[in-house]
Structures are given as C-alpha cells and as structure tokens.
C-alpha cells in the first residue's frame, strides 16, 4: 500500500521523473531544518545523566571567569576596587556568552565530522547546511545565556554589585542583545568555516580566538588602556559596542568601556562617552559588516573544504 502522504509531494507521470520533485519549499524547509537542528543540538547539550552536573558545568565556568577578575581587582585595588566590580562582572558574564556561542558552531562541525561521522550526510541532504549549523549552535548559545544570567545574578546577590531594575534601559537592552546574538552567530560561522579546514586538535581554537578578541573589546578594562592602534580594532569590532550597550542599559551612567579621558573615541568624536543611539548605530553598522563578511567567509571556507574533500575526512593524533 503506497503512503499517499509521500506521493503527495511526488508527481510521477508514466514513470518519468518530474523536476518539480527537486524543488524545495523555501522558508518552510528552512524553518523545519532549523527547528530540527536546534532540537538535536539541545538533546546533545542536555544529554547528561545528572542534571545537577549539567547545571554546575553551565554555571561554574562563567562564574569562575568573573571571580578571577574580581580577585585581580581585590588584589590590586583592595576595597576601592568594589566600584569597578559591575564593570568587570558584566564584561566577564557577557564574554562567557560569547565563548559559548562561538564555540557552539565550531564544535558542532568537529563533533559531527570526527566523532559521529555524520557531517557528510548532513551536507548532502537537501536542507541548508548553514541553517543546520546555526540550529545546532543555538543550544550552546542558550546554555551560554543561562550561564551569563547566573553570573550576573551571583554578582548582584553575592558580590555586591548594585543593580536597580527600575533604572535599566530595557528597550536599549533588548535591541543590543538581539543584535549581539546575530553578531556572535556570525563570528561562530567564521570559526565553523575554519574548523572545516583544520584537524581534530582544533577543539580549543574557538576559545583561543575569542580569548584574543577579549583584548580589544573592552570586556574587562576600558579601551583607553590600550595603545591607539589596538583601540582602532576595538572600535570597529561590533562586540565592543555590544558590551558597551549592555553595560549602558543595565547600569546607566556607569563607566564606559569605549570612552573616557584620553580614549580614541574622545579624540575622534569630541565626546567623553558614546550615547545610547550612537552605540546602537555603531553596533548595527559594524554588526552588518561582520555578518556579511562572515557569510562570505563561510561560503569560501565551505567551498574550499568541498574542493579538498575535507567534509568527510577524519583526522587525529
């Protein structure tokens, strides 16, 4: 008995192949692929025999990152460093989110290629490879978001960070968070494209790359501390504007990572600190450029991998 649900999408007239069979269903396919990949990613991330361990893992890493910086402050500045805690804790929490998001897609490529040997099957399926990768990365983004949120909460509850919910600029927060997620996903795509070219030992490449970016985005110290050439990198990075925007939204009036006396921003704009509108516009422009560039780089990386037969290889030492 033929399943008519299957035949419904197949038109076979007199045993001739119907080209309509090869047409996709556009957005419907994309959404389905994304949902399926996201569900798979979540199942893999949440595949723990002990939920407590999962929670600890999700929280311990970002909280520890924040504590490292808090103690560095404590060691040098002593009690007077407490005023800088919100600055470093917000930056550290957001940065753990970045690490998580960027690593997610790259590790999905390495996992699927090296361990599960499924990458080639995903690649030759009619679903969009890009969509599936992004879907797979969403789970780790969610885990990272959870970790970041808990780190901020620990900062407020345990480490004495002064937080006024009524003072938060919520519209700014929502806007910059959404734009930030897009930017982080774009960076993650670039890392995924790199990992398509490299061998198994590149598990730590995403963290290393993000660790390097950590230098120039004003995550835990203001850009003004850096030499001017490095400040340029900072100002053109969308992550810098994203972190500054979140800080400005959560702690209006607090110290800015971009501006400040003697900063390149002040020299260029004449203003001490950027306004919320300026932050949003800069984030939008730099984010759009980075997103476009990452899409191009991803396609180029994918083409190179296909050309050299890297998609189904396994490596290891």
């Amino acid at each position: 008995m033929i399943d008519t649900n299957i035949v419904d999408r197949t038109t076979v007239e007199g045993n001739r192949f119907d080209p309509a069979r090869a047409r996709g269903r556009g957005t419907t396919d994309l959404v389905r692929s994304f949902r399926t990949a996201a569900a798979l990613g979540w199942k893999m991330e949440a595949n723990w025999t002990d939920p407590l361990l999962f929670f600890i893992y999700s929280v311990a890493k970002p909280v520890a990152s924040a504590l490292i910086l808090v103690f560095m402050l404590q060691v040098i500045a002593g009690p007077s460093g407490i005023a800088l805690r919100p600055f470093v804790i917000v930056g550290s929490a957001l940065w753990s989110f970045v690490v998580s998001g960027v690593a997610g897609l790259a590790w999905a490529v390495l996992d699927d290629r090296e361990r599960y040997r499924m990458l080639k099957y995903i690649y030759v399926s009619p679903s969009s490879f890009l969509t599936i990768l992004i879907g797979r990365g969403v789970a780790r983004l969610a885990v990272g978001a959870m970790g970041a949120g808990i780190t901020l909460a620990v900062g407020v509850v345990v480490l004495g960070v002064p937080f006024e919910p009524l003072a938060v600029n919520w519209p700014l927060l929502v806007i910059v968070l959404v734009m930030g997620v897009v930017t982080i996903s774009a960076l993650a795509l670039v890392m995924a494209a790199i990992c398509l070219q490299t061998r198994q030992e590149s598990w730590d490449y995403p963290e290393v790359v993000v660790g390097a970016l950590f230098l120039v985005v004003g995550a835990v110290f203001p850009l003004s501390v850096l030499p001017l050439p490095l400040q340029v990198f900072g100002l053109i990075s969308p992550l810098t504007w994203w972190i500054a925007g979140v800080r400005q939204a959560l702690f209006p009036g607090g110290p800015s990572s971009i501006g400040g006396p003697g900063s390149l921003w002040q020299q260029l704009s004449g203003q001490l600190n950027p306004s919320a509108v300026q932050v949003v516009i800069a984030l939008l422009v730099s984010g759009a450029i980075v997103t476009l560039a990452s899409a191009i780089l991803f396609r180029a990386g994918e083409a190179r991998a296909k050309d050299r037969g890297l998609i189904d290889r396994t490596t290891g030492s």
Partner: protein
Amino acid sequence: MSGSIQAPAIDARGITRVYKAKPTDVTALAGIDLEVAPGEFFGLLGPNGAGKTTLIKILTTLLLPSSGSARIFGFDVATETKKIRRIMNMVAGGEQSGYGILEAREQLWMFSQFYGLGAREGWRRVDELIDAVGLGEQRNQRVSTLSTGQRQKMNFARGLLNDPWVFFLDEPTLGLDVSAARSVRELMVGWRAAVPGRTVLLTTHYMAEADELCERIAIVDRGRILAIGSPAELKRRVQRESIFRLELDRLSGGPGGLARLPGVISAVAAIDATKDGEAPTRQTVVINLVLREDSALAGVVAALDGLGAHIVALAKSEPSLEDVFVELVGRGFEEDDRDEADPMRRAGPADRAPVEPHEAGQPDPGEEV
C-alpha cells in the same frame, strides 16, 4: 619430529558471554566449544549478531568471557594476555582506526614500535610489507586519503608486523569492492603459503569467502556453534541427491523416458532459446535431473545416446553453505537480517531449532598432523 604434542592454536571450552543491557541482558555466546589446530585456516560463518566478533574479542584478549575458558597455544586469554598479544594480531573489516595526519608508512611504523620492533628495524619491515601488500605507490600518502581497499591493505600489513602465530581476521573484506576483496584474500593465502604453520581464524558472513579459504568452518548462530566441518563435509549434510543440469541439442519423446531409468528421481525438461547476434535463434533442451547418486548418470547418458541426443553442456549443482545454514536453522541469512529489525524476533533462544553441533571429520586430538 620431536614427538611432543603442540597445544592447539585455539582451544575454547564452554565460552559464554552475557552483556548487561536494558530491559534484559543479551547473551552473545551461549557455550562455545572450539578447537583449532596449529596451521589451520578456520572459519566462523554466521549472520550478523551470531556472536562471531564477540568470540574474536575474547580470543584476542579484549573481552573476558562470562564463563568458560580459552587458550591460545596454551596461554590463557584471561590471565596471560601479554604473552598472547606477542604472538597474535588482528584485523577487522570496516576499520577506521589510525591517524589521518600520518602517512601510511608512518602509521605502520608507529605500530611496529608497539609490537617490539626497533626503530630502524621497524622502518625496514614496514617498507617490505608495504610492497608486499601492493601499497607501494601509497606509502607516502596520508592515511585520511587512502581508499577503503588501500586502508584495508594497510591494516593487513599492520597485522603482519609481528609475524603472528595466530592471525584473527574479523570480516576483513567487509565493505570492499570485488577487486579489493580479492586482493585481501590473495594476501591471506599468500601469507600462509610463505609462512607455513601459522593459524588463521576468519569470521565472515560471506559464504563464498569461507568456502574458498577455509579448511574447516564452524557455522555459528545466536551464540552457538551449529556445525563444524570442512566445506565439503558440511555440504554433504544437506545434499542427499545428485542434481545435474544437461543441455541437449534435441530430445525426442520428452523426458518421461529418462525419469523411469534406474536411479533417476526426476527429470524436468525445458526449451532454452538463445539468439546469438545476427545468427538465427539456437534452441536447446535443458534437462534438470535429480539422481539418487552420481553413478546413475551413466545410465542417463547411455539412454540419451540411444535417442540420438547430443549433450551440449553438463553441470552438477552443489548446495551452498547457506543451504547448510537453512538446513540447520530453518531460515536464511537475509531472513536473519530482517529478524534483527523485528524486536519480537530477538527474544532469545526459545525459538531456536534444537540442533546438536556436528563435528564431521574433525581429527582426533591424538592424531598426528
């Protein structure tokens, strides 16, 4: 000959292996008794899930039996693992092991170090084996770029690095094309010819491979040995009649007269028309004869001669090892694969046909070889 009796190459007694699983434990081996003489090419033939790989893993010291004992040239697989690992090697089919970043030659050299060869000795041996297995052109190619057949040749070379006294081959031609599979089989045969006295235990579910290579075969199903013997002995179990196919240029009067000859059980005729290019169609008469024994054929040939028929072709049909399996178990290998997918069929031994293992033609332990 010194007169001392050498220990069997493989001596397994009462081997069982149970895996803990949910909802019920899985019995992979349910009492295996097996003895392989030194220098023998022995085959384990059975469908997927029969327990062949589990048995090999026990014999290669990777797995402990749940009960029973096994020895390799007298060394216990449970307690004398190091000694066994020095005198055996194993190659499995479908292996993806290895480091893709290394060249084939380097990969083999690394394993030569694991098997006790010195650094220089290892390179020399690797180069010899690479040429011997026909991988000369690929010696400096990265493992990740080797084809499946080339990789398996490399694995085979790895298996020979330490001149094993017992060579375990677990479905070594799995996934290989016809040409690559033939190359691997030729290597097996060539190695044994070059180094007499070495023992091979081959597991496979390719009947033709077992038939071609093995001196003795054990047919395994669901953790038990159903029969042991040479391929010919096993086939004789199921072939009670002689079956012949004759092709004649003509047959007047039909096959009825043939069926009434002494020793003929049945004779069925059919017209076979073949067109050979532009030439006119050629018609022959094909007779499928079932005789009580081969000697009855002489009477049939004489009768055909008397009828003026000329025999164009004559062939004898032999049962296959799958016929033997079907005879023993009541189902074929393909049915078994389908049953694997049916959870109701994987219930356990309750539905298995009761068959006593038959060790046709096995030499007595005290017999000199």
